[in-house]
């Protein structure tokens, strides 16, 4: 078990850290969106009618799209989020409509939190043969193995339940911290890993679709997710029923809740119909309540509620997705996610520090390689994320493929951090040099991101509160928090390194003086 725990952690720890880091940031993906898409930093949620704002916006930008998708404004996203597949490019386009004025907001081109950070944590943006999903699935399964094997090999689990000894050696204190974050956050880590696998059961356990539905994806989608389909008639329709009226009809049909998502299928076509989905902001379970209406007569075509087994799956998904409106829990998820990052990083640290002397003495390369991987995949991904934020503030709006440029900066910076970690000479007396330098880089980049946000948008850490832009205050506070923690860690590691160097110098002087 010890061997399994050690090597599973060392081999897949980097992927796990990337997933945990991006997953943790995804808890506040909408807030990161506001930071990266300044046009959507709106102060109030107005009541402009869907028919006089969103519908004209679609008629202007996507009259021939197959569907018009509308996410209604919420406290976290104070604008209509509209999306469609552009028939010319076959790509999904997302835009925002001001709910106070009905005006279509400028396209800022960034993938931001919901378009880059959130998908990264479950597919790593590796789409070739779904390799990203499979890699993440393997890492999720490995996480479960690591948790179970970790409990088994932690023989003093109850004796050391409250034990943390920061004053002891680095291997000892990092193991203590690894144990503490692992034991106390065990329910969280287990739930996240398991629910991640359950959410993508269609990919990881395809037999659930192929066996009962004979591989018919459409039949599966209708039975499980309630997806109703009606083909286009390919002839023009008349005047559509009011979308606001259909939303109100759906609420009356459910008898509770409110809609959060509306989709117009085949807009303009004689067979057009409207899908309305119920919000799950007030519940853990992500309900599948939906009603389909004929777009011209308003007749109810189909109504769906999830079956009990699917409801269980949606409850587990809800535990993972954190889509509910509960700020206390949202912050708890965020800090627990950071706890997961600490768990993985301290696991790496323990492996490194408990083997360093032996590997250097025996001229083995293991520590060197794992240290570079650790640095690149922990501090490196944090620097890359900050690079992504900085690129967002520096690349001008209006540049074609702005979002792709931001992503390119992320990957380039991340690659550079690995190169730096591999090239940085490691000496026994001045170890963790790469860690120290990358920690200072995190501090500098985080402060730069906050400064650039101020310079380019006028919103800063202080006036964001006065203007009620809590999402900007929160994101800036988070960035400054990273800067403080990174600078503190760098100073602490530098002091340790200096004292070790002094110690080594003293020892060599004594040895020379005594003629050893």
């Amino acid at each position, binding site marked *: 078990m010890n061997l399994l725990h050690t090597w599973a952690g060392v081999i897949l720890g980097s992927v796990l850290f990337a997933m945990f880091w991006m997953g943790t940031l995804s808890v506040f993906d909408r807030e990161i969106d506001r930071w990266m898409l300044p046009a959507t930093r709106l102060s109030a949620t107005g009541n402009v009618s869907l028919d006089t704002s969103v519908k004209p916006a679609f008629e202007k930008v996507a009259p021939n799209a197959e569907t018009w998708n509308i996410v209604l404004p919420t406290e976290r996203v104070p604008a209509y989020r509209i999306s469609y597949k552009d028939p010319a490019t076959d790509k999904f386009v997302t835009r925002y409509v001001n709910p106070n004025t009905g005006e279509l907001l400028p396209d800022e081109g960034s993938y931001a939190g919901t378009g880059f950070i959130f998908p990264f944590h479950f597919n790593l943006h590796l789409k070739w043969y779904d390799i990203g999903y499979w890699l993440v699935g393997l890492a999720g399964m490995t996480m479960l193995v690591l948790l179970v094997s970790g409990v088994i090999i932690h023989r003093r689990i109850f004796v050391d339940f409250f034990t943390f000894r920061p004053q002891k050696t680095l291997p000892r204190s990092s193991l203590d911290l690894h144990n503490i974050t692992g034991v*106390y956050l065990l329910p969280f880590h287990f739930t996240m890993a398991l629910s991640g696998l359950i959410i993508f059961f269609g990919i990881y356990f395809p037999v659930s679709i192929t066996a009962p539905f004979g591989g018919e994806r459409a039949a599966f989608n209708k039975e499980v997710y309630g997806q109703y389909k009606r083909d286009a008639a390919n002839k023009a329709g008349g005047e559509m029923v009011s979308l606001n009226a259909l939303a109100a009809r759906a609420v009356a049909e459910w008898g509770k809740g409110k809609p959060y998502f509306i989709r117009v299928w085949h807009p303009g076509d004689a067979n057009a119909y409207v899908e309305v989905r119920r919000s799950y902001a007030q519940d853990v*379970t992500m309900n599948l309540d939906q009603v389909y209406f004929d777009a011209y007569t308003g007749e109810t075509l189909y109504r769906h509620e999830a079956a009990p087994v699917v409801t269980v799956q949606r409850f587990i998904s809800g535990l993972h997705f954190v889509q509910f409106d509960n700020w206390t829990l949202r912050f708890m998820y965020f800090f627990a996610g950071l706890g997961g990052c600490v768990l993985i990083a301290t696991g790496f640290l323990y492996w490194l520090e408990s083997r360093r002397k032996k590997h250097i003495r025996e001229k083995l390369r293991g520590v060197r390689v794992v240290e570079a991987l650790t640095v690149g995949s922990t501090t490196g991904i944090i620097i890359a994320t900050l690079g992504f934020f900085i690129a967002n503030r520096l690349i001008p709006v209006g540049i074609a493929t702005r979002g792709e440029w931001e992503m390119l900066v992320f990957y380039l910076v991340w690659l550079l951090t690995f190169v730096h970690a591999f090239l940085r000479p490691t000496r026994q007396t001045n170890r963790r040099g790469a860690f120290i330098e990358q920690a200072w880089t995190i501090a500098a980049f985080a402060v730069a991101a906050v400064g650039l946000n101020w310079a380019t948008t006028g919103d800063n850490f202080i006036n964001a509160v006065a203007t009620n832009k809590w999402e900007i205050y929160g994101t800036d506070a988070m960035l400054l928090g990273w800067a403080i923690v990174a600078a503190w860690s760098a100073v602490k590691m530098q002091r340790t390194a200096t004292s070790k160097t002094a110690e080594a110098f003293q020892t060599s002087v004594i040895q020379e003086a005594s003629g050893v």
Partner: protein
Amino acid sequence: MFDILLLILAAASGYAGFAVLALTQKQHLEKVTGVRRSNPQTLWRRIAGSILLILCLVVTLVRDGAAFGSLLAVFLLAATGIAVAFTLAWQPAALRRISLLTATGSEKTAKKTNENF
């Protein structure tokens, strides 16, 4: 406002519960009280600690209902447990009051005797 008070109460009971449970272990009790060979009074403290942890769960259920409340309890218990471990590492004396509150007569006498010497 009432929500915040309930959250503070839940967090305080979780912290106190774990602190009392930590004091059932000799090495932590000695660190907190500064008295060697203290009697951890395991049974009594385990009962008191468990009651406080259950109180944390009850308060979160009252505050947020079954679904959100039980989730909040899981997070709060993790956070307060880690906070107790950190307190024992950096400021063990901060738990002295809890140790005195949950001490029975013999431990208080031992503490006083130790102070007199």
